[in-house]
Structure formats: structure tokens, C-alpha cells
């Protein structure tokens, strides 16, 4: 009997008549059924979000933080409700189910699970970072003092709509702090990944969070559209066209391509071999599926040598059985995606003149299949300049381009970059890096781009996205 994951309507379980299969990548066999919400139902519930917000608003922030911390332990360790039919999910079940439908190997899921589990316990610190040390009782009372100055914050929305991707479970970390900020969430899970948001929600509920805080709608494009158009604030994951589409809408925070980069300064380039581990981890951690993975390495010299060294370091990253403890490479949930990406890279290699350095080292083609799954082997290309179409591309597997450029020109050419790790001690250049408007997150020194401290803003400050500071004068 397959588990049937229901809809949650302000915390209430609802079973749709429209049940859709979530299928295993390798076999095409259904692993679960999800209740699909019609868009009218989603719209109807969005009109009731004041009720959810009212319930959450009455719970003190500190209590919500305690709940969040407990939820992290529960997420990692407990057996939780899964289907409306009474079926449950242990941590091992979660791992197996997510592996089956996402193509992620067990090792990566464990890593993501641990990372996500740890986030819950850090939400207090995250809020301190995002609010710059605000006494959270200000959110309980509505106003208070900070550094001797009156402060008041009001929520600009009664819910946070979240349109989830399917590519990496850890991205759920981005919405988890919303609960401690007393803002209910309206989540549309990724098609191949209903598991993680559901498990996070169940963890919160078991930890004592009011269920009304959670609405969960597996739904169609129209249902997603209803959330995007009607929720007061929306967190959305998408490609460049999605980013462009919503660029001028302050309600919507789009998490698009990261185009994260590592820049090595002229002062450090002679020692580039010392940073090889940082380069390799940044490109390949989490199978290169995240926006914080490095997709371009920019160096003032030795580009050929660096490209070859990174490609060689990744050559052993190959498809293995998903439960193999050594598996690091993830398959694609949608096999057409793997084919399309590989063809696109070949097209750009042909038109731009870049070299696929990995192809000169590995014995096999980039596109591989194993056990019914579809893979792309790590690919490092050597581009002559940022003019090359591959120089600033980001793909959902370990892929990076190496570009040689004099240090003085780098910041003019890198373009918008979610994370930049600059390996340098050159103070003048560090000053220029700090001033560079194209860099969202800056690491100075040999810090892998994929290691993120969540107590600092990530693609926008969630607190400032959900709350607005207002002036307040209280005479009584």
C-alpha cells in the first residue's frame, strides 16, 4: 500500500480526489501518492491566512524558538506521520523515499538531513543575525526598545508562500526561520520532492507548533500561480527567466542561479595547489546541485594547470549505487534534463571554443546511466574569457569553468554572483571586493563557497522581507 501524502489546509489534513503518483527515478514505479490541490482551493485558503497568523502571533517568540529547536531533533530522529491513511515515516524511510524520487545518493541525503537538522537549532542565532540583535519580545508586544531607541515592527504579510524546488532538501532551511518570526508558511513542494517540507512540518507540529502555521499544497502550475500572485510575500526558486519575470515585484524573492565563483588573487596564485581542496569541494559538494556551488574559477594565471588539477581530482566522482557509502554523484530526477544539459554544453563548446578538460582525462562520455538512473560526470571547462558562453554558466551537477583574467579586470567581468570566495590578502583588492555590488555573499580567504553561515542574509534578509520597521510613540 503506497502512502498517500495529503494536503494541509492551515494544518488540517485534506485528501484530494486528485491523487498523483510520485515515481522512483530508476524504475518509474510509484513510491507514494500525493493529494493534488485544485487552484480554487489554494485561493480559498489564502484568503484565510489571517486566521493562521493570529494563532501564531499569540505564541511568544521564545516559545517558537524552543519549538523550532525541538523540531530539529525530531526531524533527525523521530518516526512521523506521513499519509492520511495512518502510515508513518522513520528517518530511514525518509532517506530511502527521497533517494528513490530525487536520484540523490544516501550519503548526500544524510549530509543534507544533518545540515537541515542543525538549522533548526540555529534559528535563534539566525534571527539575531537577521534582526541585528533585536530583543524578540518586541515582536510579541509589537514594540519595544533597542539600544535605547523605540522600535516597532509590523508584519507586511500574513503568510510566506514558498514554491519549492526538487533539487536539494537543504533549501528548506530558507523558510524554517519564518515560523519563529510568527509568519505562517504556504508551501508548494517540488514535484519529485514532497518529502522534506512535509517532514519538516510534521517535526514542527510534533514539537508543539500550532498546526495552523502550515499549509502544504502539492498542486499544478495554476496552483503555484495562485500562491505567487496572492500571498503577501513569496519565496520562489527558478531560473533566469523566473528571476526576470518577478524582478520588479517587491513581494517576491526569487532564488535563481547562483553563479558563485572563486577568485584567486595575484598575491596567492603561486600557491594555488594549497587551495585545490577548496576549489574541488566548492564545485562538487552536494553533487554540485546548489546555487552556492562554484561554477566559475577566475585566476590571474595557471588556468590550464588549475583546470586540469580540478578535473583530475573529480575524475573518481562516478555513478555508484545510491546506497553505496562512497556515492557522491547524484542522478537526475528527470532524465531528459541530463540529456539536455549535456547537449547544451557540447553546443557551447563547439560555438565558443572552450575546452572540456574533463573529457581529456576521464575514460567515458559525460552522460552516463546506471541502474536506470541518468548521470552527468563532473565537467571542468577551460574558457579563454568571460565572452565564452560557458564561462558564467551554472548547471545542476559538478560543473565549473576556469577563466584566466588579470586581477584588476575580474570584478568588472564576473557579473552577479551569489557567493564569491576571494583568496587574497591584498587589502586594496579586498576593499574593492567589499564595494563590488555584484557580490551577494563574500568570503575572504580560502573558504569553500558551499559553506554558508545562515545567521547572515542569504539572497535577501528574511526578517526585512517579512517585517517593516515603523515609527512609534507611546504616550501611556
Amino acid at each position: 500500500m503506497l502512502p498517500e501524502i495529503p494536503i494541509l489546509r492551515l494544518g488540517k489534513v485534506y485528501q484530494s480526489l486528485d491523487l498523483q503518483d510520485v515515481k522512483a527515478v530508476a524504475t518509474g514505479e510509484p513510491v507514494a501518492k500525493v493529494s493534488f490541490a485544485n487552484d480554487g482551493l489554494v485561493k480559498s485558503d489564502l484568503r484565510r491566512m489571517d486566521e493562521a497568523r493570529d494563532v501564531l502571533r499569540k505564541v511568544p517568540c521564545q516559545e517558537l524558538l524552543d519549538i523550532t529547536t525541538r523540531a530539529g531533533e525530531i526531524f533527525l530522529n523521530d518516526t512521523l506521520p506521513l499519509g492520511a491513511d495512518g502510515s508513518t515515516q522513520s528517518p530511514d524511510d525518509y532517506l530511502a523515499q527521497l533517494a528513490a524520487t530525487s536520484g540523490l545518493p544516501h550519503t548526500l541525503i544524510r549530509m543534507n538531513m544533518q545540515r537541515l537538522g542543525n538549522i533548526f537549532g540555529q534559528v535563534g542565532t539566525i534571527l539575531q543575525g537577521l534582526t541585528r540583535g533585536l530583543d524578540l519580545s518586541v515582536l510579541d508586544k509589537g514594540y519595544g526598545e533597542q539600544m535605547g531607541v523605540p522600535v516597532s515592527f509590523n508584519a507586511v504579510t500574513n503568510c510566506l508562500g514558498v514554491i519549492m524546488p526538487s533539487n536539494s532538501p537543504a533549501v528548506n532551511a530558507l523558510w524554517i526561520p519564518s515560523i519563529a518570526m510568527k509568519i505562517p508558511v504556504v508551501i508548494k513542494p517540488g514535484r519529485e520532492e514532497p518529502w522534506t517540507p512535509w517532514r519538516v512540518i510534521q517535526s514542527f507540529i510534533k514539537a508543539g507548533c500550532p498546526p495552523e502555521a502550515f499549509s502544504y499544497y502539492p498542486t499544478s502550475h495554476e496552483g503555484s500561480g495562485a500562491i505567487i500572485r496572492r500571498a503577501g510575500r513569496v519565496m520562489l526558486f527558478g531560473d533566469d527567466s523566473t528571476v526576470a519575470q518577478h524582478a520588479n515585484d517587491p513581494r517576491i524573492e526569487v532564488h535563481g542561479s547562483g553563479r558563485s565563483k572563486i577568485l584567486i588573487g595575484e598575491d596567492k596564485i603561486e600557491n594555488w595547489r594549497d587551495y585545490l581542496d577548496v576549489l574541488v569541494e566548492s564545485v562538487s559538494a552536494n553533487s554540485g546541485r546548489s546555487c552556492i556551488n562554484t561554477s566559475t574559477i577566475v585566476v590571474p594565471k595557471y588556468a590550464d594547470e588549475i583546470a586540469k588539477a580540478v578535473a583530475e581530482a573529480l575524475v573518481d566522482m562516478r555513478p555508484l549505487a545510491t546506497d553505496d557509502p562512497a556515492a557522491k554523484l547524484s542522478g537526475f530526477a528527470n532524465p531528459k534534463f541530463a540529456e539536455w544539459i549535456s547537449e547544451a554544453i557540447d553546443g557551447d563548446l563547439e560555438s565558443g571554443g572552450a575546452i572540456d578538460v574533463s573529457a581529456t582525462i576521464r575514460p567515458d562520455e559525460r552522460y552516463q546511466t546506471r541502474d536506470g538512473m541518468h548521470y552527468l560526470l563532473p565537467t571542468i571547462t577551460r574558457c579563454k574569457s568571460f565572452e565564452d558562453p560557458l564561462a558564467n554558466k551554472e548547471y545542476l551537477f559538478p560543473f565549473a569553468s576556469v577563466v584566466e583574467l588579470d586581477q584588476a579586470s575580474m570584478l568588472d567581468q564576473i557579473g552577479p554572483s551569489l557567493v564569491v570566495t576571494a583568496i587574497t590578502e591584498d587589502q586594496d583588492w579586498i576593499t574593492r571586493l567589499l564595494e563590488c555590488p555584484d557580490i551577494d555573499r563574500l568570503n575572504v580567504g580560502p573558504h569553500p563557497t558551499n559553506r554558508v553561515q545562515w545567521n547572515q542574509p542569504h539572497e535577501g534578509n528574511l526578517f526585512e522581507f517579512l517585517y517593516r520597521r515603523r515609527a512609534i510613540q507611546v504616550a501611556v
Partner: protein
Amino acid sequence: MITESEANDQLDAHLREMVAWHFSPETGCPFWLDWAAKQDWDPRDKIQTFADINLFPHFQDEWLRDEKNERFVPKGFGNRPFNIFETGGTTGLPKQRIGWDDYKTDYEMFSDQLEDEFFPRGANWMMVGPTGPRRLRLAIEHLANHRGGSCYFVDMDPRWVKKLIARKQIDEVERYAKHVVDQAVEILKHRDIQCLFTTPRILEAIGERTSVPGLGIKGVFCGGTTMTPQAVRFWVEEVLEGKARLVPTYGNTLMGLACSVPLDETYSVTYYAPQPRAVLRVVDSKQTDRIVDHGEYGRVELTTLTKEFFMPRFLERDEAIRRKPHAPYPWDGVGDVRPFGALEKKIIEGVY
């Protein structure tokens, strides 16, 4: 209720009568008489039972755009002026069907299926949907009048909405929907109206604004788009709050109106054509002279058989499940209708 066998006999007799009418030089229309003149068989001889309908080719709706309307006037109607009704058409000349009394007959037959408890005799109606050159506008008003009431109208132009959707101007679609719903809610609030015809999208939008039963609406006759069981359940349980009756229908300018049997707990909607005036079959989309088995999906094929209009084997742009006869209809139905190829391609349907 008549038996399936009696219904078949009735259909065959009606078919012979209609073929005789449309293919006799004294009563037929130029279009079909010219067509018959080019064949080496006479429909009046060969068409004896409905199985013989496959001798005709599939009716092409382009003919309703390319041919002059006058060529579809049966001589039996003499010089009596006709109504012109349009169907579809976002660009260029729309397809047109002419008619005289069919819409009245169709909707009087439909009226017989409505329950007085939910569509009270003498109650006023409101239509919120495509009016303009459509048959529906006159038909709904006639339905209201036939049942002793009057009808209020709010227009919605689906051609404009289709263009907006094609251009991905979804915000503009929402503004237009609001404009339509504003007008409807205003009238519903201030006039005594108990019966509503509208499209599912507009019904939802009205329900977002206010309680539909709270406005005094007892019955809603709805049509125009895919109605999945989940969506129907949502309309019944939440938009109509389990208080007002939802009557889904399937119809268009070329057919008339197919009624649904009362909904059960599956909320799956099955429509039954107004036989013998129109016949719906579910055919294999790759071999359209083969009817699919009961329970299978296939393309919807419509044959219209009235003195005003003869249209054999028109392939609708819909697919459906072939369903077994269900009282009071002793003939096959079409269930869970959705746009043809809905699983393979994106279809602009958001208008309704």
C-alpha cells in the same frame, strides 16, 4: 424510462427522418445537397441505422467559416430569417452556425431535468458568461422565461481573455475577472435572483467575494470547461457550501446541451447527449470509426440531428471516458471530459 433497445430504435427512426429532410431537394440545404450530388450513393437509401453514420466523413468546423451561412438554410425553412450564432474565434472570421428554434427546444428539454427545489419556477436567473454573438445568451434567457422568470446578464468576452492568457498577461486576466465579478456581485446583492448560469472560474471568483448561497442562489448551472472530480467537489462543498445545487453541463453552439446525472461521492461528471437530437460517442483518436470500450478514454465525437442543422461525426476538441447508460438516459455518456491531448500539451482553457 425507455429501454436501450427502444432508445436505439428511436434514434434510428429519427436519423432516417433527418436524412430524408436534409437530402431531399424540397427540404434540404444547398450545402448538403451539393455534397450528396458528388457522391455515388444516396444517404436516403444507405443510412438506415446510426451505425451507418460512419458513411459520412467527419464534419469540418472550418466549413462553418468558409461557407456562406445561406448555404446551410434548409429549403424547408423557406425565407424565414435566421439567427446567427458564433463559436470560438480569437482571430479572423469566427465560425458561425445558423438556427431558428433549436435553442429553445434544447433548453426546454434541459429545463425538464432541473429540480424545482433548486431552480424554482418563477425565479429570476443571472447569466455571467459569454453573451454577445453566442447562442447561450438567448438560450439562458429562454430557459429563465420558460420557467417563468427573467434573466440578468453580465458579459464576459472569452476571446479577449484567451488573448491575454496567450500573452501571459495573467494579472490583466485577474483584473478583467474582477471587473466581471464586480458587476455580477452588485446585481446579485440588489436583485432577487435564485438561479445562476456561469463558468466554473467565475463561480469560484464570485465565491471568493461572497457567499453564493448567502446571496440567495439555490441552483447553479455550470458549463464550459474541464471539471475534474476534485474541482467539482470543491465547488459543491465549499463554493456552494453544500447548500446550492450544482448542475454541470457540456455543450456548445453546435450541439445543444448534454446534461449530467446527479453527482455521487466520486464527483466524477458524466454527460448524456440530448438523444436523438444529438449523439455523443467516444472514439479511438487514431482510428475514429472505432468506438472505445466503456471505461476508456477517447476523443469526443458529436453528431447533431435536427431539422435546422445536420452535422455528422464532428470531432470535438475534447476527450472523455466512455461511460455506460445511466437512468434516465438509456444511452452511453461521456465522463471526465478534458481538452483533447490534455496530458501531452498545454491548452489555454483558463477563460472558463
